[in-house]
């Protein structure tokens, strides 16, 4: 009973393109590794001695009950929080105390649990803003906006239009995002993160508050993003069906500690995980 409560991975093994992935260890190159990271705010320990790694090209899920430290973990990875202990290395390079914009420059993009779009800007501008780091032209060219600055703008616009096509949001291109329905806002936010062409994409509950159809759409985008563009994805999600279907490997947190790590099947059968989600019988 406990295993079914956590969802099944039946769909995943059904679809042909995933068969070889689950049978052979495709992802062997390490992209990010977190080792012995601890984070506390004053006396509150948010994360205690957590270690895990993310391989290049995989979909890695981070799950756990509310308050388990999942979002804190993402915040540590992209530099919002600085852990008191532990080492994070990204693409083989160790890093300490990194600012968010430096993390962005090194190739980490992120979406937020609560949509964090630029509300006063159009869908197009929001996604264009993801290209900021890739645009180079300085103040002088921006002022006259002919020649190099304009060509650069158009070149990036082409990329952005590809993303708009991919996410099927062409009809809302010029609309201010503040007025869009929630599901579309989430999609625009994914597009904005995609525009950065990141090596590692962190998705913080990309499907929270969505209906089944929207969830299926979003799942499709995530799978395509992973298989077609080869983007490595770390994902926090509460919908276990989605997690078990999408993720190659899952890490489970509870009260800031890691309690399980492995393939969806392994995690589902772990007694500790079942206890964390369903409680311990007395």
């Amino acid at each position, binding site marked *: 009973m406990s295993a079914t409560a956590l969802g099944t991975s039946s769909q995943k093994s059904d679809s042909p393109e995933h068969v070889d992935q689950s049978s052979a260890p495709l992802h062997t190159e390490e992209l990010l590794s977190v080792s012995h990271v601890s984070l506390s705010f004053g006396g509150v320990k948010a994360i205690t001695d957590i270690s895990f790694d993310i391989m290049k090209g995989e979909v890695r899920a981070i799950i756990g009950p509310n308050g388990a430290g999942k979002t804190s973990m993402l915040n540590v990875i992209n530099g919002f929080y600085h852990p008191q202990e532990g080492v994070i290395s990204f693409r083989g390079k160790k890093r300490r105390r990194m600012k*968010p*914009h430096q993390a*962005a*420059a090194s190739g980490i993009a992120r979406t*937020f649990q609560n949509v964090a779009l*630029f509300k*006063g800007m159009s869908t197009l*501008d929001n996604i264009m803003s993801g290209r900021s780091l890739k645009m180079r032209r300085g103040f002088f060219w921006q002022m006259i906006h002919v020649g190099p600055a304009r060509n650069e703008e*158009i070149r990036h616009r082409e990329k952005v239009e590809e993303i708009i096509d991919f996410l099927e949001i062409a009809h809302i291109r010029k609309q201010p995002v503040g007025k869009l329905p929630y599901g579309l806002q989430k999609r625009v936010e994914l597009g*904005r993160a995609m525009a950065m062409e990141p090596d590692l994409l962190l998705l913080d509950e990309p499907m929270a508050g969505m209906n089944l159809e929207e969830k299926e759409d979003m799942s499709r985008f995530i799978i395509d993003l992973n298989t077609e563009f080869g983007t490595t994805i770390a994902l926090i999600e509460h919908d276990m069906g989605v997690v078990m279907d999408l993720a190659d490997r899952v890490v489970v947190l509870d009260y800031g500690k890691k309690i399980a790590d492995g393939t969806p099947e392994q995690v589902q059968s772990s007694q500790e995980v079942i206890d964390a989600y369903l409680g311990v019988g007395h």
Partner: protein
Amino acid sequence: MLYREAGQFKTSYAADQALLPIAQDRIGLFVILISAFLFIPAFTSDFFIGAIMIPFLVFALAAVGLNILTGYAGQLSLGTGAFMGVGAYSCYKLATYFPDTNIIILILCSGVFSAIAGIAFGLPSLRIKGLYLAITTLAAQFFLEWCFLRIEWLYNYNDSGAIEVPQRKLFDIAITGASASPVARYLVILSIVALLTLVAANVLRGRIGRSWMMIRDMDIAAELMGIRPLYAKLSAFAFSSYYCGVAGALMVFMWLGSAEVEAFDINHSFLILFMVIIGGMGSLTGCFMGAAFIWVLPVIIRAVPSMLGLDLIAATTEHITNIVIGVLIIFFLIVEPHGLARLWQIAKEKLRTWPFPYSST
């Protein structure tokens, strides 16, 4: 009906990203520029140009400056008057030291000093947001005002404490000083304002303008997109203060002819802020609408009683003007808190589908 872009198909991103993608807008702007450059100097009186158009343009430029900072980059500032003062006093000093250099170049350079002041007083914005930041810019206002009053070097140690504009010529036509004709001054101001507005529009639609709006809308997400808050905020302060500085220099050199420290006091900062709020935050058109509303409308209202043949004493006219303007401000802010520019935008959207409002766009 007027605003149907039907048939105007864009076949390139360049055309789609043009400043004014709709043909009607381009025609409209062309008509406005033609009448501003040709018809107004040719057919209107010196009073109209000197008392209405010149101040209107100066204030519009200052409002553009403040709007870049407050409307686009989201940093509230109450120091506009002081930054205009920095521009005016530096232009005065520059004119003293380089008497042979063209005054237009000096005016454009004086904005640089104001930009430096803007950066210095923008530093608290890295730690402080919103109303609290407004208070720190208030410090800029009072500190700089004190400098204008106490540092005698700034006004060349003259007894009056005022800066007097020397006469300067462009192509042998006086454009500053007492003998300069309003038309000449007007044309110089108009050219500078038109040019700087175009530059602002260009910067705002590109990478840098976008980074300011990102900081305004969601600074955390902006940082994650690789925007350095330090650089984005300070560049907004610098760019904005440059505009305020040039507006200040224009105000003294091309409009007032001489000025004391009172010309740059806190009331002035508020006046510009009201123009931005009434006109519309985050809209360049709004700056001009706001400046027109706050400056031109009172002049017109003041003229109404005499036109109607009513013989009112000046004080009564002044009170009536204040009442009417106050009521209008409240009215417009209730109808549309986002300012006149938003009203104009809504009107355009309605006009697209008029007279069939239920047809989809």
